[in-house]
């Protein structure tokens, strides 16, 4: 790698030990992946902010950094492990919460922006077409690369912190044109309508594409932002997809040829759809229902409020979203409707990044493939991947009949 004089000074420790260590991480990454130079960035979205993820090792790592470290560029924080305002009421364990707040204090000292959400693009952090950024959170990476056409690699906590301290990232991977072309072509043969439909497609394609770039053609209906949010989370759960293209929809895929040339497509039809759904299917009594993975937009909160109006839920029902969307939901009366129904708007966190609840849930239904994928291992329960309308029905009845 060829460093500028400034970058060399940073690496030599002339700007302090933290800058030195940060550059060391970035240079190591660059060397591994054959980067020729560093890129200036002005936008970081940092993962590794939930204490459940960072653990004590991460907590100490960030606390050490915060002694002298200050972020050079705007750094928004990803989802954390508690609802920062009513974690007590929601039953989050005290010792976990205190460690979490300690970790947040370290990030704030360095100047991080307390967005606490996996949907930075829904709360004002919108990188522009072609802009180099350093983003963590696998669902947000896939969204910002694919839908907004910005450029980021999959940044972990330490590299995001290093990028925030230095304003630099090594020029490898998805920062370079040649790595943004498609590798696997998928032909979608069925009409995708709901967020779950897109989640199922994503889960199917992520498993096949792995760390490579899937291209989707044949999607008739223009996907909504919520559809793409669901797809982005799913491709990055069953696989490590950081970039996908939807022909005629996403900015870098005006035509199939332009992004992947000629290739025999992998078909995604009714059979493939049902295979994924079968992986996450269950029946009987439901004790936990969750939507908002990734965090809900206002349209999703509204949909749930409409379905819950005047009803009462039997199962615990989390609607996960950002603090900002909740502010809007409060103003529009949705929070009240949801609370009256006995359900919970949970901010800043989600089951995957929060400590496993002590309530010993057994069966969870959700419309998120990412949550359906992670929850069994992390919360020791079975999951069902169903439509949002069915999630609400299951919450009200405390039961799900299991029709696919």
């Amino acid at each position, binding site marked *: 790698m060829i460093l500028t004089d400034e970058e060399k000074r940073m690496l030599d420790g002339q700007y302090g030990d933290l800058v030195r260590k940060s550059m060391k*991480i970035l240079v*190591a*990454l660059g060397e*591994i*992946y054959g980067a020729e130079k560093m890129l200036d960035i002005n936008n970081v979205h940092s*993962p*590794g902010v*939930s204490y459940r*993820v*960072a*653990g*004590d*090792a*991460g907590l100490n*790592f960030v606390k050490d950094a915060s002694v002298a470290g200050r972020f050079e560029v705007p750094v928004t924080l990803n989802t954390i492990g508690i609802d920062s305002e009513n974690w007590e009421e929601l039953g989050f364990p005290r010792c976990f919460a205190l460690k979490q707040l300690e970790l947040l204090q370290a990030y704030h000292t360095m100047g991080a922006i307390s967005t606490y959400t996996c949907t930075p693009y829904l709360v004002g952090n919108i990188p522009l077409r072609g802009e180099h950024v350093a983003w*963590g*959170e*696998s669902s947000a*990476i896939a969204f910002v690369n694919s839908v907004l056409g910005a450029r980021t*690699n*999959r*940044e*972990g*906590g*330490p*590299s995001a912190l290093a990028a925030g301290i230095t304003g630099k990232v090594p020029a490898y*991977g998805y920062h370079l044109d040649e790595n943004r072309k498609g590798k696997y072509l998928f032909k979608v043969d069925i009409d995708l309508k709901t967020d779950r439909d897109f989640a199922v497609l994503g889960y199917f394609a*992520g498993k096949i594409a*792995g*760390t490579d770039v899937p291209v989707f053609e044949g999607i008739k209906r223009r996907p909504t932002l919520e559809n793409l949010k669901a797809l982005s989370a799913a491709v*990055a*759960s*069953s*696989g*490590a997809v950081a970039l996908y293209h939807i022909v005629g929809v996403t900015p870098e895929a005006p035509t199939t040829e332009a992004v992947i040339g000629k290739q025999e497509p992998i078909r995604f039809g009714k059979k493939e759809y049902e295979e994924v759904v079968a992986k996450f299917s269950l029946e009987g009594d439901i004790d936990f229902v969750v939507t908002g993975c990734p965090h809900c937009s206002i349209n999703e909160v509204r949909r749930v409020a409409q379905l819950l109006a005047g009803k009462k839920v039997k199962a615990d029902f989390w609607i996960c979203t950002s603090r900002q969307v909740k502010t809007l939901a409060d103003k529009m009366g949705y929070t009240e409707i949801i609370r009256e129904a006995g359900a919970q708007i949970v901010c800043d966190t989600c089951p*995957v*990044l929060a400590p496993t609840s002590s309530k010993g849930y057994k069966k969870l239904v959700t419309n998120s493939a990412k949550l359906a*994928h*992670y929850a*069994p*291992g*992390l919360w020791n329960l079975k999951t069902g991947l169903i439509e949002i309308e069915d999630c609400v029905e299951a919450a009200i009845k405390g039961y799900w009949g299991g029709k696919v």
Partner: protein
Amino acid sequence: MNTKVIKGRKIVEGIAEGEALVTKEPISFMGSINPKTGYVIERGHEIEGQCLKGKVLVFPRAKGSTGGSYMLYDVVKNGVGPVGIVNVEADSVVVIGAIVADLPMVDKIDIGEIETGDYVVVDGNNGVVKVQKRDNDTMGD
């Protein structure tokens, strides 16, 4: 003692050796592994229930959450993590965790040549993996 030497790409410097724990399925350190115990907790994973402690972890590539960097760092710091990592294709999230955990790591290796139980040396300085087959009966030649 027949030891195979496989040339790959060096990811993180340092030498590590130990019994191999091999899987053909991708791993996400956030979600597949319990960082407190080092056990594989991902439901239905090929090595579900196995423990990473002291093992050379051999898997094709990573998947899932970017939380994996700190969780790899945490599981190593908790003393229940792998001693080295061998991949077909190293994912940045795992690489970043291995860098901060100073965990020797090599990729571009055909992991089909390694089986669980083989004794493996991960040479992160030269990007080389030495494999001593497990089922060799005559010990200590």
